């Protein structure tokens, strides 16, 4: 695995009127970074900035140590991508789309592409418009993976797909990771999509990266604690993401993003008893991170 990061985004800012996307993140070689956020959080704008489709107002984007502004074509030869909605040339035959795209990439793997076409029973003589949504998504993925890229930029690749096709996408991406080990930047507003693949997860809300953390650390650091107490305890708000106290039944629900055994002692000192600690699913972590600040 190369030491040079596959992607470095330094202080990038893109503005659209009131909306401003600010990103500062690195994707290591062979790493899968999932960017999650609700609709309108800036995921598609991020991918467009990375592909040179829109130019950010400031900041620096480097792929494999090369500056995007100066080495756009050389970089793109090593980058596979899926754009939002997987737009392909609708009036062109699927086989011709592949032949057209193959011309741009020096490492296009026709054996792999043919084997996938056969595996997914994709008819190359059919026009893209005649293919079903799932088949179009499959064709888009073949275009993205066909060049055996060093980095894949995937914008909502599973949006609108049925669970079976989603499963298929995950298997395909896993196969590619095992085969030629690309780095992947994958965006989605559905946590389950990135849960299976991502090594690290970036949470994007209203153009701001709120948190970038490895999946393991997220699972380790986030806990829900339930307990009982007679009155609302005084707790350090920096240690707790959420504190919900039901005065009638004396129950308290707490969520922390920096779990350690010492927290239990502090709860005990604050008068919380009958404490139970639970791990949070990534879906639950997502919902807490995305909560608007109160």
């Amino acid at each position, binding site marked *: 695995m190369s030491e040079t990061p596959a992607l470095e985004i330094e202080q990038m800012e893109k503005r659209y009127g009131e909306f401003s996307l600010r990103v500062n993140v690195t994707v290591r070689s062979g790493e899968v970074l999932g960017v999650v956020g609700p609709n309108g959080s800036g995921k598609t704008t991020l991918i467009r900035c990375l592909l040179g489709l829109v130019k950010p107002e400031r900041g620096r984007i480097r792929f494999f140590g090369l500056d995007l502004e100066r080495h756009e074509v050389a970089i*793109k030869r090593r980058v596979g991508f899926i754009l939002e909605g997987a737009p392909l040339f609708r009036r062109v035959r699927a086989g011709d789309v592949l032949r057209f795209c193959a011309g741009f990439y020096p490492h296009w793997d026709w054996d792999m592409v043919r084997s996938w076409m056969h595996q997914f029973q994709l008819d190359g003589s059919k026009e893209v418009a005649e293919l079903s949504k799932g088949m179009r998504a499959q064709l888009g993925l073949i275009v993205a993976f066909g060049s055996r890229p060093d980095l894949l930029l995937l914008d909502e690749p599973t949006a609108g797909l049925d669970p079976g096709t989603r499963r298929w996408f995950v298997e395909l991406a896993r196969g590619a990771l095992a085969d030629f080990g690309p780095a992947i930047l994958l965006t989605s507003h559905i946590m389950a999509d990135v849960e299976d693949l991502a090594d690290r997860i970036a949470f994007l809300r209203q153009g701001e990266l709120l948190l970038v953390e490895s999946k393991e650390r997220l699972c380790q650091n986030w806990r829900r604690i339930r307990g009982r107490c007679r009155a609302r305890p005084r707790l350090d708000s920096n240690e707790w993401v959420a504190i919900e106290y039901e005065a009638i039944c004396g129950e308290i629900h707490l969520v922390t993003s920096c779990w350690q055994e010492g927290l239990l002692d502090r709860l005990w000192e604050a008068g919380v008893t009958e404490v139970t600690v639970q791990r949070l699913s990534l879906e639950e972590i997502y919902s807490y991170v995305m909560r608007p600040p109160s």
Partner: protein
Amino acid sequence: MTLTFTYELPLWYPLLSSAVASLGAGFIAPVAMAVVIQREKAEGSFQLLCALPISKERLFFGTVLAAVVGSLVLWLPGYAVAVLASIPKALGGIPLVITLGVIALSLSCVSASFVVTIALNTSSPTALAYVIALFFALPQLPAMLLLSERIEEKLHALLEPHLWTIMNLVLSIRGQLLVAGGLLLFSLLILFAGVQLFSSKRSYV
């Protein structure tokens, strides 16, 4: 009894048909290309094209070249027929047909560079339609001015002594090269401005 057909096409017929076909096709192909570009923009495929590993300059010039080749493919067969048809009529008419061909080719280049430049640099079909209409209306401006009698008189007086010289120049090889060169230079100027605009765009979506 024998029935004999005597059918003579006057010389102006192949000349007129070649002129109309050449000029029409020379303008229609770039406009058709502009419509395709706008459609691909609306469907999102243009984003895919811009995201592929191809420089913006190559994408721009490739599109213009496609429009020029498109117009050539459209008008060349009709033009060739018109040239062949004019041969039996009068050999003297051939230079005029060739002149028409050169001018039509040059105008194809001008219209392709202009229309494709606008189509690539704007995302609004309405704006595109207005600009194209304006572009094709502009050459009619001198004709409109001629409607004014005073201007016509002045122009008449100015050009009359030189009319034969001008006609000879236009019909001569030198004149054709001059007109074609001028139009091609105009195309290059449009292309230069167009590629600068296209490559410095802040958004291709």
